[in-house]
């Protein structure tokens, strides 16, 4: 994911060389793109984005400075304006992460993590193998419940503590835990910043994650535990030997004490429950998609900060990693430039050109590209750049398998190298500090690559098997995609789009849509102006839909329905939308 020394200890010459490579490669990418497929604004966006990727690789400690400068370049080259910056910076994702970090701080204070560790060290009939499997599962599930970095900090401390007692080198056991943590982080949207970002961008609910991602994560976890257990079988045997020798002398791994856990467990369950039930609450209250999901951690942390008011400032100032969050915010905004400048469309068309629109090719391709990319570059950068491309691809194919492929690739790919994820870096830092143990790049790569490969194969097979059962969701379409000028074909695609209704339409006879059963209206672009008109058909049986369209009075509506392509009958507009719903809450000014 990023360079371990981050540029702080570099000599001047080395620093300048890396800086020159970073800027040079970025400019070269922009110039080559500009001379071939991109215009000036697109070329600037690509150049800055490429520089940031290299910047995080070469100068991890300067990543925020590079992001600030990159943003300035984008603004000055008209590639991004302030309004677009604010729109793309995914403040909702940042606030979600802030809320989760505050809750993690409170959970630590309340003894929740102490309780987990205490349960593991004092479990009955403990053996070496049992300890390793339970620790692996706990690190993955804790990553699901809170986040991967929190999980690995607490689980690593547990491993250090136990290895101190058993006089063992903790390195192999920490590696097993980290690999499982990265796998676990794909299970829910709380596990990894990319999870919530993908969830927000793809309109995925907590339920979607639990239905599709979580079971596949469990399978991948089982494969990772199995392969790491086999790979480190000698170390596991040694662990068991030392443990049994200690137990034979009636010595335990830690003091047996009752750690109070109820408050912490209640807080965690309340948060997870609030997040899990977001879809129902949004439906009851008529709120926009994922709005409750994003504010649930904030609401829970708000309650925490009132109850534990003496610690509130500590949570906000010390437990929230503002540095990383600011970096993410800028990264999202810079990645958003790729969307604003339509680089994503070009990338998506190239992608579709290479892979076609078959899931059998797209899924493994996305998995492999994101996994390999995330092994060296921050997975958030990769996902931020890929999301608009998936959005583009989703207008033609069923999008769920693609989103899951992106999620699994980004999370599992972090296992490949020792710099592949923040959890790896944190764990290795702890290992170096606590046990003075160094892990070599290739030492990690052997087991990291093996486990990531296996997990990706499991995910691939799982996605291919589940793909027929995944719903073809309503994809967010831009109005202009439906016009004949766009040259796109979306026949049979479930879609959502924003448009204005400009009045009733009189259409020629359309096969499959008898005039007696449907009312026709004209739509116009949501931005106003006189763009090309697109027809929408409303079943007469749904009087309330007709009434809403008639009463719309040129306001912007959120329309949901199925797109039909009729090149022969509708040569001017090409597409037709058969309306299924207009959510009142989705009507925006």
């Amino acid at each position, binding site marked *: 994911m990023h360079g371990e020394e981050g540029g702080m200890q570099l000599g001047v010459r080395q620093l300048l060389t890396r800086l020159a490579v970073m800027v040079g490669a970025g400019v070269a990418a922009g110039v080559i793109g500009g001379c071939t497929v991109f215009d000036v604004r697109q070329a600037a966006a690509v150049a800055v984005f490429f520089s940031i990727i290299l910047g995080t690789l070469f100068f991890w400690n300067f990543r925020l400075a590079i992001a600030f400068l990159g943003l300035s370049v984008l603004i000055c080259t008209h590639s991004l304006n302030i309004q677009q910056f604010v729109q793309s910076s995914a403040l909702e994702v940042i606030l979600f992460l802030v809320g989760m970090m505050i809750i993690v701080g409170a959970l630590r204070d309340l003894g929740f993590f102490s309780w987990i560790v205490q349960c593991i060290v004092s479990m009955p009939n403990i053996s070496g193998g049992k300890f390793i499997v339970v620790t692996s599962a706990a690190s993955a599930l804790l990553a699901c419940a809170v986040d991967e970095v929190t999980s690995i900090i607490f689980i690593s*401390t547990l491993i250090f503590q136990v290895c101190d007692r058993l006089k063992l080198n903790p390195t192999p056991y920490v590696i097993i835990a980290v690999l499982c943590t990265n796998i676990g982080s794909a299970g829910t949207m709380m596990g990894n910043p990319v999870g919530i970002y993908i969830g927000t961008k793809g309109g995925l609910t907590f339920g979607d994650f639990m239905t599709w991602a979580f079971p596949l994560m469990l399978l991948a976890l089982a494969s990772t535990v199995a392969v790491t257990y086999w790979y480190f079988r000698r170390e596991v045997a040694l662990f068991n030997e030392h443990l049994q020798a200690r137990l034979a002398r009636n010595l335990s791994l830690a003091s047996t*004490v009752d750690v109070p856990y109820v408050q912490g467990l209640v807080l965690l369950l309340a948060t997870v429950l609030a997040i899990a039930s977001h879809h129902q609450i949004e439906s009851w209250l008529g709120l926009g998609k994922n709005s409750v999901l994003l504010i649930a951690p904030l609401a829970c942390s708000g309650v925490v900060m009132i109850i534990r008011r003496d610690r509130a400032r500590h949570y906000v100032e010390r437990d929230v990693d503002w540095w990383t969050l600011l970096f993410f915010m800028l990264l999202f905004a810079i990645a958003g430039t790729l969307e604003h400048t339509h680089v994503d469309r070009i990338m998506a068309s190239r992608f579709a050109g290479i892979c076609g629109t078959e899931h059998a090719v797209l899924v493994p391709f996305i998995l492999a590209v994101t996994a390999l990319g995330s092994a060296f570059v921050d997975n958030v950068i990769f996902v931020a750049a890929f999301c608009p491309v998936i959005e583009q691809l989703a207008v033609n194919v069923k999008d769920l398998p693609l989103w899951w492929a992106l999620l699994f690739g980004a999370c599992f790919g972090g296992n490949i190298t020792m710099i592949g994820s923040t959890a790896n870096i944190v764990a290795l830092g702890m290992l170096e500090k606590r046990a003075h143990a160094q892990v070599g790049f290739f030492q990690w790569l052997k087991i990291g690559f093996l486990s990531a490969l296996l997990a990706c194969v499991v995910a691939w097979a799982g996605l291919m098997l589940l793909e027929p059962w995944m719903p073809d969701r309503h994809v967010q379409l831009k109005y202009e995609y439906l016009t004949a000028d766009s040259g796109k074909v979306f026949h049979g695609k479930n879609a959502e789009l924003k448009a204005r209704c400009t009045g009733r339409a009189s259409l020629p006879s359309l096969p499959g849509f008898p005039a007696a059963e449907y009312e026709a209206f004209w739509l116009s672009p949501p931005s106003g102006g006189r763009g090309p008109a697109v027809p929408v058909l409303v079943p007469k049986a749904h009087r309330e839909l007709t009434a809403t369209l008639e009463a719309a009075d040129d306001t912007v509506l959120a329309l949901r329905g199925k797109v039909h392509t009729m090149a022969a009958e509708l040569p001017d507009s090409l597409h037709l939308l058969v309306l299924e719903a207009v959510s009142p809450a989705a009507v925006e000014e």
Partner: protein
Amino acid sequence: MTRQPPQYRNMLSDRQISCHLSASDRDGAVRELLALLEPEVNGFDAETAFRAVIDREEVFPTVIAPGLAVPHARLPDLDRPLLAVGIAPEGIDFQQPEMPPVRVAVLILTPGDDPGLHLQLLSGLTAVFKETPDAVERLARMRAPEEVREFLAGGRHLVPDFLTARDLMDRKIPVLREEDSVQSAIHTFAVSGFGELPVLDREDDLRGVLSIADLLQLSLPEHLLWMEDLSPFYRFQPFSEMLRNAGETKIADVMREEYLKVSERMPAIQLAKLFLVNKVLQIIVVDDRDRLAGVVTMRDFCAKLFWE
């Protein structure tokens, strides 16, 4: 501050040696030795020097070997070290009842801004006495100052250029044995007053260290420290298991195998750095065979440099 340490042969003249100290008590002996130095330095304030030597003697008695005392003091107005040697065949009461009467007294006065000089001079002197085990007896029998000067300053022993760990370490420290129980370690800590002790194996090889902080950590593991409120443990519940098993648990089970150790020859200033950078209060000193030679505690280190 003195850059090159002066050697005894340059510092000690026959005028600074008395082979017949008449005093029978410590104060009288110190006054006699100071009187020898008065003609050597213009404006020498013997009374101030006397007070400084006695004040220091009250806190840190300086009878370093049977029959040998090295009273010393640092004087702010002094610009060079001064030495005076007194022989008392009848013996002087240096107010240390556990030691025999002092028969050889070496007074060392050093400039106030040189913290290590008196220790360097002491190190040079120690080398002479180490080489000749009956040095005190032989000196006590000498009746001519030139004979005393030749014995102390005429040899090959030099005042070292700088202080080393060997000059500052405490050699008489209790040790723990790895096969012993934690219970015995608790007892040793309680009676010795040391915060950290070396652990040796049956062959007297150094195996690790154990500190009272390690025992505390054993009782209260790190995962319990994550909790902000320790009210569930107000009655020290986590300690009970450690105490219950203290008789069964071997020191080898809980000792730290990674610790700071330095060679006897390490310059003392490096020790100061190690204390500060590693935030430790004690450093193990090993000899050339990597065996335990002694321990330098930060307290002793500072006491010797700042106060003694």
